[in-house]
């Protein structure tokens, strides 16, 4: 391999997502312009709100935190060749579980209460993922459909629980009681505590994938499950393990959001986090470290959504549209065709059979 090719291989994992964002933003600009709004103004507001003030940065990072975690949830499963669209449902069940732990246990010190609530979140997120994982491992049912179905089931179930057994008494709204003060995740050096937690997870998972036998096992099954079996790695166990990790991390995402921002569980809470997680994971090339910049970008865009409407007159749904386009350009090999190197196998899913 000559040096020029080698250089391309190193750059393009960064270049392609970067270029995708630029191209998507340009397309978005055209659409905004057609509506009679100044795209430059719109984008300026979008980015300055998110990144150009200390307050803005704090909000951006707060928004990025659950995105990093749900992005990780999808990314780890992608590495195993699984498409975890269920991050949304796993996240919600984690949020509800952590809220319950947050308001039920009284008199615990924060040092105990917060980790406990997080563990509840991780556990219930993992359980939801486990259902899809077992169906895939033992019945060969494709995880795309099961996880999407589970999302809806979890949402309905959470709605029921929050309207009945877990409902905050003496008031009409569908929501749980507030969590105890000891369960609240506050700030560290002015930045949300959850953010540091998310970064920590990201680094830990990156290290695990690169340097441990577990990581090698997951990676191998993801790339060639037949060779993995030949090498003695259990395909079924790997499917279950990676989905459990994904579900747990997504559950933590929901938990962090509950304990840091919302302070209780409300069914209408943050509708799109799980799906943004997919975009984050793909933008970050399913790399545990790569999801961090991706999440910050998307978090920033979401943070400034309402400001953009107020100051530039564009609906905050513009962000949804932009994200859809970013996803399109990142995954369609339009841009990577400019770099004629080997395609990276982000996902090995193909069809319904194993």
């Amino acid at each position: 391999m000559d040096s020029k090719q080698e250089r391309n291989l190193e750059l393009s994992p960064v270049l392609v997502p970067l270029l995708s964002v630029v191209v998507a933003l340009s397309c978005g600009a055209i659409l905004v312009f057609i509506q009679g709004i100044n795209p430059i103004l719109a984008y300026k507001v979008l980015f300055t709100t998110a990144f150009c003030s200390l307050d803005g940065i704090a909000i951006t990072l707060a928004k990025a935190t659950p995105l990093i975690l749900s992005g990780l949830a999808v990314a780890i499963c992608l590495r195993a060749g699984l498409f975890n669209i269920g991050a949304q449902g796993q996240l919600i069940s984690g949020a509800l579980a952590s809220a319950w732990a947050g308001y039920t246990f009284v008199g615990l010190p924060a040092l105990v209460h917060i980790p406990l609530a997080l563990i509840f979140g991780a556990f219930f997120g993992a359980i939801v993922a486990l259902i899809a994982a077992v169906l895939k491992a033992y019945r060969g049912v494709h995880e795309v459909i099961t996880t999407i179905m589970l999302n809806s089931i979890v949402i309905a179930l959470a709605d029921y629980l929050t309207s009945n057994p877990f409902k905050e008494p003496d008031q009409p709204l569908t929501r749980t009681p507030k969590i105890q003060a000891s369960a609240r995740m506050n700030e560290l050096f002015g930045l949300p505590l959850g953010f540091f937690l998310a970064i920590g997870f990201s680094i830990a998972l990156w290290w695990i994938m690169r340097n441990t036998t577990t990581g090698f096992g997951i990676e191998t099954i993801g790339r060639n499950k037949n060779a993995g079996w030949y090498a003695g790695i259990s395909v079924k166990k790997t499917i279950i393990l990676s989905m459990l990790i994904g579900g747990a991390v997504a559950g933590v995402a929901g938990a962090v959001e509950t304990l840091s921002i919302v302070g209780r569980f409300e069914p209408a809470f943050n509708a799109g986090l799980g799906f943004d997680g997919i975009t984050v994971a793909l933008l970050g090339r399913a790399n545990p470290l790569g999801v961090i910049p991706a999440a910050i970008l998307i978090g920033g865009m979401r943070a400034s959504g309402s400001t953009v409407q107020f100051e530039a007159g564009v609906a905050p749904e513009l962000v949804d549209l932009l994200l859809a386009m970013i996803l399109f350009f990142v995954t369609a090999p339009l841009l990577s065709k400019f770099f004629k190197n080997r395609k990276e196998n982000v996902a090995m899913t193909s069809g319904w059979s194993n």
Partner: protein
Amino acid sequence: MKTLLEIHEVSKRFGSVIANDAISLAVNEGEILALLGENGAGKSTLVKAVFGLVKPDSGVIKINGSVMESGDTAAAISSGVGMVHQHFQLVPVMTVTENLILGDEPKKFGVVNVKKARAEALELSEKYGLHVDPDAIIEDLPVGMAQRVEILKALRRDVKLLILDEPTAVLTPQETDELLEVLRNLAKRGVGILFITHKLREVMAVADRIAVLRGGKLMGTTTPNESSESKLAQMMVGREVVLRVKKTQAKPKDVLLAVKNLHVNDDRKLEAVKNLSLEVHAGEILGLAGVEGNGQRELVEAICSMRPRLSGDVLVKGRSIPNMNPKAAHLAGISHIPEDREKHGLVTSYSIADNLVLNQYDQAPFARGWVRDLEKVSSNGEALVEKFDIRAPGSSLTAGSLSGGNKQKVVVARELSQQLDVVVAAQPTRGVDVGSIEFIHTQLIAARDAGAAVLLVSAELDEILSLADRIAVISNGKIVATFSAQEADRNTIGRLMAGLAS
């Protein structure tokens, strides 16, 4: 005599590999031209260009005098070219009739006339003496019968030039003779035949003319009269080829691998291995001869614990291997060179170094408990690349960029550099260039001499006759005979492989 096919200065490259380099050839009416060359010489690419499956970079192809548009299979077919492919181009779940009519169905207003199609199938079958059941489903058919369908499919469209790509790879010696007879008859009717093979015996038996390709170039044309097997081998490889590997007499000791009353199913839940037993001693190579599809794959996978054993036992050094646990089989001392290197043997997007520790990644020294020792993996990679002469600039190169022969060397390097108790080598030199074949054969002999029990499963009878100390023949899931290398006789083995009593 009319010239049916004219290939003029055809070139094709795939990336950095030059598959065809300015090749010029002709095939005449009623003649059988054999296209000879080792694996990777460019034979398949050339005929695929004729058939429109591959677009040449330059050159002209003329069929019956008119120039062919490159890459147009439909045009090639309507010009009278038929092709019998190495890997059958048949839809497994459809019937013989459906496969025969595909692409040119008898129909009215788009609706297929099934009766007419069936009648046609039977008619064709009669005409060429290749009997098939029109309603049989392809995946239920034995390989020889499926090939007949493949041939009929090619003959159906009023073919003037018939191309066959390695047709005898899956046939017993008897079936091969039958096929060659069919070809001779076709030639007598005026059909031109272009026949790809790497088997010298067949070429000498049936060809009118022989063209030899090496490294993408045409080395020359000759006839059976003017040549010999060894001369052809030399043209194919460019140097003197050792047709039989040198080895000393075997000194077998204890039984290291024992298979007892094994029953295994195939992927379609049909019994593939039927109450099979065998033993391999330390210091010997047991060659398992058989045409593909007789249960070898299932047997090998069951021995290596990759496929469930319905009943029966597999013992290494007297201890039973657990069912469905490749890791345990490996730890018990089985080294497995799998039949399908791309599927089981390698992760092509991993580096060579990672592939070299694929099934030991979690054992010392490549891992200390949970944490991998990436440096050791790397240095091991460099060492093995050198020792096994793997043609790559370094062990961090992606395995997918290696040639077939070198990929196989990676697998062999990995399996033969570990503790050698039992070596199971399944089709170890399939799709591999001659140089690598010689190398791998030498390595297997070395393993034997170091005291390993080697089970060599191969569809290439010559390979078995060359390497094995004892030979067992598998047919229809059973061992039908066993003899020592000295007793072995090509003809007898051929008959046994076909399931006929000796």
